[in-house]
């Protein structure tokens, strides 16, 4: 027959309770410690200043969304023709305007590779702006590689200087800590805002390129060059960041250069064999529509580039470019 000592039973229960309380305190302590160390916002991109004011809307009030397409091998000719179809540069740039040309100078590569905005296009658009009465023109970008080398080797610096435009390099003081209202990604992020705040008209100039992550690099992806910090983390959410960029910048005009389209190995390319002479230039006031038309030069459709539909849903433009195409 088995009996149990009541003292031992009590002792065992007390021991269990003691251990339970100890374990609970341990768990609560570890949790509290974790909570104390938890940085809800995650790492921030370097020293940040105060939140800045909203960026201006550079689109012209009351102007309808339109795009025009010109064909040819000479950028100077096709950009002039496309703008003429939209009513001429005078519809977008007025006397005394301060114009910012946001180019793609991402890489320190020669113009022949088509990885950057072609200097001939920069020169002609700047020339047209001055003819329309622009008081000053600034050309800028925050390149992937060393900025000075990028602007020099891409030929953009020389082209801008030749027509009297000023190149602004992305120096540290030209960035602001910016939060796009309602954005998930552009929150307290460094944005190259000083050139934007110094201008009252913004024109985006982008080449047509294949892009390994996003499918295509066109005018919307071109705004990526306004971001600073460790922006490559956005590559994991490339479509979402392009959608937010479409809301960040409301340009006066965008110009997409498909004279030579980079069909593969983008966005850097590396050989002129990656280019195809598609001889097309698209200009318009609706960046989503311009990109939807440009995607076709790469043999892609709107469904191949999810960020286009996302940007359309966010109100940045329309993917049905034919409905606003000026013949």
């Amino acid at each position, binding site marked *: 027959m088995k009996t149990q000592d009541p003292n031992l039973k009590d002792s065992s229960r007390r021991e*269990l309770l003691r251990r339970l309380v100890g374990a609970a305190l341990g768990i609560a302590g570890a949790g509290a410690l974790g909570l104390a160390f938890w940085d809800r916002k995650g790492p921030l991109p370097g020293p940040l200043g105060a939140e800045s004011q909203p960026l201006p809307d550079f689109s012209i009030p009351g102007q309808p969304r339109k795009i025009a397409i010109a064909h040819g091998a000479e950028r100077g000719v096709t950009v002039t023709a496309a703008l003429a179809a939209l009513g001429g540069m005078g519809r977008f740039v007025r006397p005394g305007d301060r114009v910012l040309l946001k180019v793609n100078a991402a890489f320190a590569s020669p113009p*022949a590779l088509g990885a950057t905005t072609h200097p001939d296009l920069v020169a002609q658009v700047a020339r047209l702006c001055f003819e329309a009465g622009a008081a000053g023109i600034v050309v800028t970008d925050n390149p992937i590689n060393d900025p000075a080398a990028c602007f020099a080797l891409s030929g953009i610096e020389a082209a801008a200087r030749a027509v009297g435009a000023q190149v602004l390099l992305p120096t540290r003081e030209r960035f602001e800590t910016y939060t796009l209202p309602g954005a998930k990604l552009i929150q307290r992020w460094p944005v190259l805002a000083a050139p934007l705040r110094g201008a009252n008209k913004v024109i985006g100039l982008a080449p047509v390129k294949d892009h390994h992550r996003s499918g295509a690099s066109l005018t919307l992806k071109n705004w990526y060059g306004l971001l600073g910090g460790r922006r*490559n983390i956005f590559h994991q959410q490339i479509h979402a960041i392009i959608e937010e960029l479409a809301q960040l910048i409301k340009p006066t005009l965008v110009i997409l250069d498909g004279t030579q389209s980079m069909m593969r190995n983008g966005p850097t390319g590396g*050989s*002129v064999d990656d280019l195809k002479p598609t001889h097309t230039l698209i200009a318009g006031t609706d960046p989503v529509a311009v990109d939807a038309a440009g995607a076709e030069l790469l043999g892609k459709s709107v469904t191949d580039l999810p960020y286009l539909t996302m940007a359309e849903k966010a109100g940045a433009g329309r993917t049905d470019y034919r409905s606003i195409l000026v013949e």
Partner: protein
Amino acid sequence: MIQASSTIQAPSSKNRPSLMEKRIGAGILAALAIVALSILWLQAHYDPTQWRAQSSQALEEKSSTPPHVADSAAVDGLVPMSSPEQYDAATLSDKIDGKAELYLSAGFKSMLSQRFALAQDSTQWMERFIYDMGSYSNAFAVFSRQRRENARPQDLTPDAYQAANGLFLAQGQYYLEIVGSSQAPELMEKMISLAREFVRQHPAAASQRDERALFPAQDLSAGSIKLSPVNAFGFERLNRIYSAEYQMAGQTATAFLSRRASEAEAAELAKAYTDYLITYGGKRLEAQGQTSSMQVIQILDMIEVIFHQGPYLAGVHEAPNVDLAMKLAQRLQTSLSNNHEDARPQP
């Protein structure tokens, strides 16, 4: 006796865990198991582009350290135009933006770049990129996936070609790109010299025998063999897949091959890929000449053939019709049988 029994039993009763203790213990073990599984899952889905353990200061210091590969810029008539820049997995996209993923997914280790100009004409320049991919197959993967359409083979290495303004080659664990600012012949001549010097300074072992030798030669499009390190044909489990394009009777089809660790793994992967195609609307077909290990699937008006032979997963991708798909599959099967002892069909 009873007292003695009680005395003996008491310690044993105290040491035996109660039901409550067992439950708590099981709960803690389950929590630890969840933590362990979470860590394993996160490691399996590790994304090198997100790795940010080093401070920017440390990275700057690192970029100024001597390059890990010997400088092979000793070419007469070339002068350095910039300092060497070194990039690792955390910084590669600072140099090549969105294309970094192509290299990272193929096992990228580091990259060294530098620009050089002609001593006589500084407007003629080139940039050399040396990618350390960790292994020959990784280097071949990035080499083959970027091959230019108008490529002209170069005799620098077995895997080398010249494009209009660039030279591209795989040598050992390295993938080398030299991109010129123009197509000037004198620039190309120096680019070839620079590449030759690199190859001389980085000798590689004799060419390795891999799946490429097993593709049937008949109707094979020159320079079309590619190696997809991951996610071949949109199926995430298809890794290390060699593919080759064939032009047969004016039509195109792709053959693929991959040597797996065992016959069982090849069979399992063949089944998994077949199931994947069926899930996305594929329909099984019966075809003449079909062997027991072979599956013929029609999907989106294209034909896929999947089979395994010994440790090889093999098949035909996106053939325009069943006849062509089976013809190519049978050639592939024959080639496997003739060239590899362990790939002979089982009786």
